[in-house]
């Protein structure tokens, strides 16, 4: 109940960060590694039944910003380029999709030239033309795409489109030539992430006939293997095969297996799980209730799939507000929290690992260390309440009121309750403020709301230390009084900032040296303790007994269109 709505939002976070700063990987992208086995006809057909507690809003691929639908868009829409449809790390690679090849990049990174594939048809039977590409790019602004102002404004003419979307032309920004079937993007400045930004569903190419406003509940034609047949936010949506689809690149848009893909909304997670257990459905979108994990991992082990996510669950502390403007207070909490407790609230050691650093394990620059620990080992051993209490007294912040803001889904609230009792045990007067994730995420960012400490998550999308360290803890990411100030701790340290810039600069030339510095940055940050890092979670998928060919993309998670129900 309470949680479901917000859990979907957690999905939203996933995707939103999934696109925060793509890059490096894209450049290295070259040959499609996946789909080597080839299409296995005998498994084609049938209907895949997916369950989600609630709908995720508009179906418009250029507006919707939730993992829940981005997962589906993979099979329904294509951009000029897209993320490779394979399992494993290669799923971060960008490959040509509607474009015949990766673009020719000239004018030191400011001009991208694509050649559009010929003869590809939309699900409404119309052929994809360069004009569709142009109109789709203009449409990004007309429907006021969430990131129009932060990503696509890099296109020449984008700025104008932001101020006057209705009359958006992107003149000189997107130049198409029907004769040569080419599309040229001119950027105001080089942008390493531009291709990634074209590869996400926002970059989908839609018919030029698509309405120049948010299409809401009405499905738009696409080029993918499937098309949306119907959508009702209260009951569910149906995807069927796109009659005009022919495989042009299995790596970009493979042929799907099921004839139909249904997603049904409106039941509780508990009953969703029950339904899959009873073979009434094939997959649950929402995170599994921890209450059911035991039952699942014993009775339905074969139907569970667990994948490592390089992500953090952490407690950002407001470094500009008492008591956590006091370093000792922040360190005290780092000592006091028992990360194993948080882990077991999340579902146990097998589903999450305690962490003491900002960078997840196995990350470039990651150095195994644990500054605030019982004893001196570099791996997490447990809390040290004595030290914690001592620090609180030393900080002179004992007895202060502390408000902890968490989202009101079961897991977050459980962890929140635990942190609450820790705060009280080390001498603060703490209260819990559960909020719908929908509000909480912006609420904790805005300094106006005077949030002292909160619980939140950060999911990576491509392996680069800057994605964590710079995005979350550099001065440039702190915007007081703004709902979008992702540096939630409001932490700003000039020397560390300098270090980060140095590391980033170095990355272009010497990755290893850069990583070394990133590691030091991580250490330096933890000395300042703007966060309490809790653990690195894993993703569990629970699929029906009859389902085969489960494949997991690091980018958009399970491929629904590749599931076998025959």
């Amino acid at each position, binding site marked *: 109940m309470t949680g479901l709505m917000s859990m979907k939002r957690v999905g939203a976070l996933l995707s939103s960060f999934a696109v925060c700063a793509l890059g490096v990987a894209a450049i290295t992208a070259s040959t499609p590694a996946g789909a080597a086995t080839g299409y296995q006809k005998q498994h084609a057909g049938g209907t895949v039944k997916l369950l989600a507690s609630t709908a995720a809003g508009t179906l418009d691929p250029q507006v919707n910003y939730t993992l829940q639908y981005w997962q589906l868009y993979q099979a329904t829409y294509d951009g000029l380029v897209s993320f490779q449809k394979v399992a494993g790390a290669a799923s971060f690679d960008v490959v040509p999709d509607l474009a015949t090849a990766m673009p020719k990049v000239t004018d030191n990174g400011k001009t991208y030239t694509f050649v559009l594939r010929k003869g590809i048809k939309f699900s409404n039977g119309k052929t994809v033309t360069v004009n569709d590409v142009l109109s789709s790019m203009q449409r990004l602004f007309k429907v006021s795409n969430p990131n129009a102002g932060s990503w696509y404004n890099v296109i020449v003419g984008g700025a104008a489109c932001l101020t006057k979307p209705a009359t958006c032309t992107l003149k000189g920004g997107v130049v198409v030539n029907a004769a040569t079937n080419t599309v040229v993007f001119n950027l105001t400045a080089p942008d390493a992430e531009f291709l990634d930004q074209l590869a996400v569903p926002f970059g989908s190419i839609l018919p030029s006939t698509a309405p120049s406003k948010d299409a809401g509940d009405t499905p738009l034609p696409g080029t993918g293997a499937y098309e949306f047949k119907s959508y009702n936010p209260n009951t569910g949506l149906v995807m069927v095969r796109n009659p005009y689809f022919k495989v042009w690149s299995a790596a970009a848009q493979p042929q799907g297996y099921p004839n139909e893909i249904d997603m049904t909304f409106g039941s509780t997670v508990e009953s969703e799980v029950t339904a899959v257990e009873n073979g009434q459905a094939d997959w649950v979108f929402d995170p599994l209730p*921890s209450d059911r994990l035991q*039952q699942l991992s014993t009775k339905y082990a074969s139907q569970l799939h667990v994948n490592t996510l390089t992500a953090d669950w952490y407690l950002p502390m407001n470094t500009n507000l008492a008591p956590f403007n006091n370093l000792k207070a922040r360190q005290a909490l780092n000592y006091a929290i028992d990360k194993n407790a948080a882990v077991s609230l999340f579902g146990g050691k097998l589903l999450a690992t305690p962490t003491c650093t900002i960078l997840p394990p196995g990350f470039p620059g990651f150095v195994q260390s644990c500054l605030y620990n019982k004893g001196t080992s570099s791996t997490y051993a447990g809390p040290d309440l004595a030290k914690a209490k001592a620090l609180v007294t030393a900080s002179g912040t004992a007895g202060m009121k502390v408000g902890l803001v968490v989202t*009101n889904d079961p897991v977050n609230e459980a962890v929140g*309750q635990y942190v609450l009792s820790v705060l009280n045990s080390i001498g603060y007067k703490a209260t819990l403020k559960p909020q719908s994730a929908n509000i909480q995420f912006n609420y904790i960012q805005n300094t106006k709301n005077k949030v002292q400490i909160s619980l939140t998550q950060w999911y990576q999308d491509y392996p680069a230390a800057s994605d964590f360290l710079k995005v979350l803890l550099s001065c440039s990411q702190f915007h007081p009084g703004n709902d979008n100030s992702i540096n939630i701790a409001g932490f700003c340290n000039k020397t560390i900032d300098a270090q980060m810039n140095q590391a980033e600069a170095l990355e272009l030339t010497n990755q290893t040296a850069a990583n070394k510095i990133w590691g030091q940055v991580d250490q330096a940050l933890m000395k300042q303790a703007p966060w309490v890092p809790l653990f690195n979670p894993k993703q569990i998928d629970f699929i029906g007994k009859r389902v085969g060919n489960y494949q997991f993309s690091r980018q958009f998670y399970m491929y629904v269109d590749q599931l076998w129900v025959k």
Partner: protein
Amino acid sequence: MRQLRRNRAAMLALGVIVLIVTACLLAPFYAHVIAHENPFASNITGTIRLNGKTVNVLQANTQGLGYGVTPIGPTWHFSNYFLGADDQGRDVFARLLYGGRSSLYIGASSAVICVAVAAIAGVAAGYFGGAVDWIVSRIFDIIWAFPVYLLAISLSVILETNGINFLFIHIEQGSLTIPILIIASVFIPYVGRPLRGIVLSLKEREFIQAAIGSGASDFHILRKEILPNVAPTIIVFFPLMVAFNMLTESALSFLGIGVQAPQASWGTIINDGLGLLYTRPLVGIMPGLMIVLTAGALNVLGDGFRDAFDPKAKLRGSI
């Protein structure tokens, strides 16, 4: 009163209520004997001695893939975790007692506020009529027409996000006062309307007319003539409202917008229990039973009150 004492069911109910109330109110004095842990502090990594063995309060699953962690079930030892632990490793039995405190406190005090305000408003409206009546009735209409739970929930959502800071009134977010005020205000019309009706009909009656005619002061008439006649109704209403409010409180807490952590009420415990419904159903079921028991007793008592105080019941003889 004698009549009430003769009503065996009502007396039994009263007994049950007294028992529950004392059990809950005295919790602070003996709960630590039952729960060695503070029932408000998480005890996730803790262990207890259970017939000689040391066991974890939260036990990681060992079968199958080994996902999931389950709190310890009922030990049936009063020494500790009599009814087992919740997902925070807290002693459910001890929490039941403490939760009962808030539930009863909220139920009772909101009933007091509700009935008091309703009585004043309703009587005033019925007695003075005219503008007073019009305004009061409209307010009743509005509260009435505002879907109860929607009103309660919207108020809660707001107030629980930022507390009340109105003029000199200042209530901390998470304070029990918020649910109390919300619940009280939501049900005012339910009590106020009937009272208004009674007063209206009273006004037609000779003795009131006489009193008015004899030029007695409004205050005097209200106190000497009206009050004695509405008092029984109010008395009858009270226990029912307490029961009613307890149920509402639990509903709100269950939706996560009533009592806020670290406070606990039977409603919040049910909510905690939901997460364990499949592995440790007792956590969710026990507080429910407590509510049923208490509310039921209050209802029986209310019936007893009605039989005893509602003059109607007396007048009607066997013929």
